């Protein structure tokens, strides 16, 4: 197919999606002349190109649509037309789309005619004609808007952008390698040049990533139409509000989350929003509202989908889970509301009383969740009966570069995406491995977590010298399990490369990568690990989602955790961190006028940088240890883990502050854990809290 035609197809599909959205909006807001102008322009420009390319069938169809739109624009949308025109135009839009799709596969327009659609358009146009012309159009305004809309831009082939991204990824690797080589050397000049290279590389990476970005609104273009059609089909009044549609996302990520969005919106319209009568009885406005909002937060995009519908009844969930045997009775009774709500992500779960053509077929939220998790994202849900439901989806900005943790097993290193690792626990540190028949389980916080030996999964067998003293707790879907490993080596940003075809049969690995030191490591696929644990466990569904932080008890001395607390970036050596907990601020008590947290039956003294925050909020608390004494630091935000040699500027040192260093390009205060542990710290009990 020639380039011109390919461009036309891509462009027209985009135009049609926008047109869909505008037409739905016109239906809601018939008086909006701006919308009419937009729709007219879209149709006109596609039609023009069709004429140029000799695509007669689409041209004829769109000509009829254009005529109708022109009549409405000049004559206003009367009550008579309002009922027929948008539907006829949407019909034309659908037909045009299927013609373009056929064009894309066959390379030419399919045979046939569109007399049916055209007749409807003409009929509608005739009723528009009967009306007196409306007031003069503000033509100048419209022209000004369209002129502003044209920004300096060019269309670039996606392959070019993808190749550019791949090359930049290689550059990042080369830079990391160079840093590794020069790390041990005392060469100021080289260090300076490297710093410059590093800066330029980072900037370039950012620019290329930006070039791959597309507004998330593109993935949403179809949604207003879907909600409109659903509302009609189900006899409900639903308003869809889109916020933050301009938020930009990597195009590859965008492709992957398109379907999950559609699914969630359908779900909200179908299950969430009640019928108008039901809403009136509940004292709510007849029209239900679904709000889809996106915003950027650090290196992630957070998307929320809220509806003001009936909410999810936890008791109903419990009943369905019981009936389908998703979890044991005792477990179900022990679950709190939030844990019960997570059951909707269980495969095959649906609470819809009846299966509609829309959703409720039991294929659903589990697929949404696994799609989002596949790209390193998370999905969470909260719901209040009678008030509505909110889904929160967090997805990374880009897939090209993934923060990973390097695990040791049998003398070999393996990478695992950090997002998959909920936490790291050291055996003995209040955690015990027990055996049920032949299966190891971890007893932690009163719960049992299925365990798997990574050495077994890898077919290493029992080798001498393997300590297996560390457990990486991995979350995959609703499953949560521990992976026994020998240690954690490092955290590094990696560029994922797919395995060669001869290795595709090995399902355990998601790919491989080259580390900064030039060595090649395999990337473990959390999904395959989950499969290795087996499907018998039901217990993991009961485990609430612990804060996801890929940080833990063991690491090399130089690795630092960077966080924000009290308005500045601070860092603590990873080696001194025992654990990170999420804590509600109201759990914090004052002991002798100093804040402390009741933790494992003892009081853990806290040192608060800045203010403690509102009692209703939750914050993460870093629990650090020095010389047998523990202290907690509430943090505002975990920023990063870095593994850089420290160049400490001690001129600002004071008790509790070792000095300031540039970490990950950020001026960071290095916290003196020893100081706080010695002055305020308290020993933590070793014993595990009882399971009861």
């Amino acid at each position, binding site marked *: 197919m020639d380039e011109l035609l390919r461009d036309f197809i891509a462009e027209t599909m985009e135009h049609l999606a926008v047109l869909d959205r505008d037409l739905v909006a016109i239906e809601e807001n018939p008086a909006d002349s701006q919308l009419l102008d937009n729709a007219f322009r879209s149709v006109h420009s596609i039609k023009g190109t069709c004429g140029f390319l000799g695509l007669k069938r689409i041209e004829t169809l769109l000509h009829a649509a254009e005529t109708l739109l022109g009549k409405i624009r000049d004559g206003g949308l009367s009550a008579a037309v309002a009922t027929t025109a948008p539907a006829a135009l949407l019909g034309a839009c659908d037909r045009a789309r299927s013609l373009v799709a056929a064009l894309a596969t066959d390379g030419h327009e399919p045979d046939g005619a569109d007399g049916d659609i055209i007749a409807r358009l003409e009929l509608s146009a005739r009723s528009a004609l009967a009306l007196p012309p409306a007031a003069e159009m503000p033509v100048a305004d419209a022209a000004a808007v369209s002129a502003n809309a044209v920004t300096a831009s060019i269309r670039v082939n996606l392959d070019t952008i993808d190749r550019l991204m791949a090359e930049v990824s290689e550059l990042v*690797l080369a830079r990391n390698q160079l840093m590794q080589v020069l790390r041990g050397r005392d060469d100021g000049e080289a260090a300076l040049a490297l710093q410059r290279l590093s800066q330029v590389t980072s900037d370039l990476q950012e620019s290329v990533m930006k070039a791959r970005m597309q507004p998330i609104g593109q993935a949403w273009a179809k949604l207003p139409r879907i909600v409109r059609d659903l509302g009609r089909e189900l006899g409900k009044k639903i308003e869809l509000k889109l916020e933050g549609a301009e938020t930009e996302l990597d195009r590859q990520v965008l492709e992957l989350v398109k379907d999950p969005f559609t699914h969630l919106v359908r779900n909200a319209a179908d299950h969430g929003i009640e019928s108008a009568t039901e809403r009136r009885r509940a004292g709510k406005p007849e029209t239900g509202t679904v709000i889809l909002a996106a915003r950027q937060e650090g290196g992630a995009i957070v998307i929320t989908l809220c509806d003001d519908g009936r909410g999810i009844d936890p008791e109903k969930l419990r009943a369905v889970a019981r009936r389908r045997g998703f979890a044991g009775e005792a477990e179900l009774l022990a679950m709190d509301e939030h844990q019960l709500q997570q059951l909707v992500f269980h495969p095959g779960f649906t609470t819809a009383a009846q299966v509609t053509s829309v959703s409720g077929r039991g294929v659903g939220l589990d697929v949404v969740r696994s799609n989002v998790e596949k790209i390193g994202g998370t999905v969470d849900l909260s719901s209040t009966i009678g008030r509505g439901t909110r889904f929160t989806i967090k997805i990374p900005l880009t897939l090209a570069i993934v923060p990973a943790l390097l695990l040791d097993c049998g003398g070999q290193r393996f990478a695992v995406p950090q997002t998959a690792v909920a936490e790291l626990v050291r055996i003995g540190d209040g955690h015990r491995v027990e055996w049920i028949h032949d299966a190891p389980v971890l007893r932690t916080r009163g719960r049992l977590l299925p365990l798997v030996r990574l050495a077994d999964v890898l077919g290493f067998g029992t080798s001498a010298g393997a300590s297996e003293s560390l457990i990486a707790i991995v979350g995959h879907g609703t499953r949560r399990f521990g992976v026994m490993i020998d240690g954690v080596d490092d955290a590094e940003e990696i560029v994922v490369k797919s395995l060669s075809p*001869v290795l595709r049969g090995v399902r355990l690995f998601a790919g491989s990568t080259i580390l900064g030191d030039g060595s*090649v490591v*395999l990337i473990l696929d959390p999904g395959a690990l989950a499969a290795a644990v087996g499907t018998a466990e039901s217990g993991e569904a009961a485990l609430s989602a612990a804060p996801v932080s890929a940080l833990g008890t063991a690491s090399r001395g130089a690795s630092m955790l960077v966080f924000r607390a009290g308005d500045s970036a601070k860092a603590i050596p990873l080696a001194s961190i025992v654990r990170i907990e999420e804590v509600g601020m109201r759990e914090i008590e004052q002991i002798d006028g100093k804040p402390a947290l009741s933790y494992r039956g003892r009081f853990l003294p806290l040192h608060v940088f800045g203010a403690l925050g509102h009692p209703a909020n939750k914050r993460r608390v870093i629990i650090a240890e020095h010389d047998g004494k523990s202290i907690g630091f509430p943090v505002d935000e975990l920023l990063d883990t870095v593994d850089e040699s420290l160049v400490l500027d001690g001129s600002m040192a004071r008790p509790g502050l070792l000095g300031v260093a540039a970490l990950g390009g950020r001026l960071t205060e290095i916290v003196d854990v020893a100081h706080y542990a010695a002055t305020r710290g308290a020993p933590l009990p070793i014993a595990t809290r009882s399971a009861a």
Partner: protein
Amino acid sequence: MSAGDYVIVRLGAQEFGIPVADIRDVLRRQKTTPVPLAPRAIAGLLNLRGRIATAIDLRLRLGLPPAAASAEGTMVVVEREGELYALTVDAVGDVLRIEQDRLEPVPAARDPEWRHVATAVYAAAHGLIVLFDVGRLLDIVPRLRAAS
């Protein structure tokens, strides 16, 4: 008529020919990252100037006894469908221009695996050289896996 240029490699006492056109590089045997659960013939992964290559032990691939751990060995890097593969061999010899009229079909008595990966046998002055089809050397790895 010429059937093209081949690089002659040695595995044990047997000589093989790999088409020069398929070869990207020849290097000393490198350390590789083993791939657990992979077919036996896959020696591992290695970093070739920023690209990841899959190393294939040709001895194991052809059902020959493995080389001694201390053996030096050489890697012949070939490219197939955009992927790099490093074929480990005992030694690499000269480039030979193969004349079409001195090619013989692979004898039927040979191991079926050999018959699959070989295109022909070349009768050189000092002995027989088995000519490889690189694509076939690689595409049957999953079959090996199924058998193991």
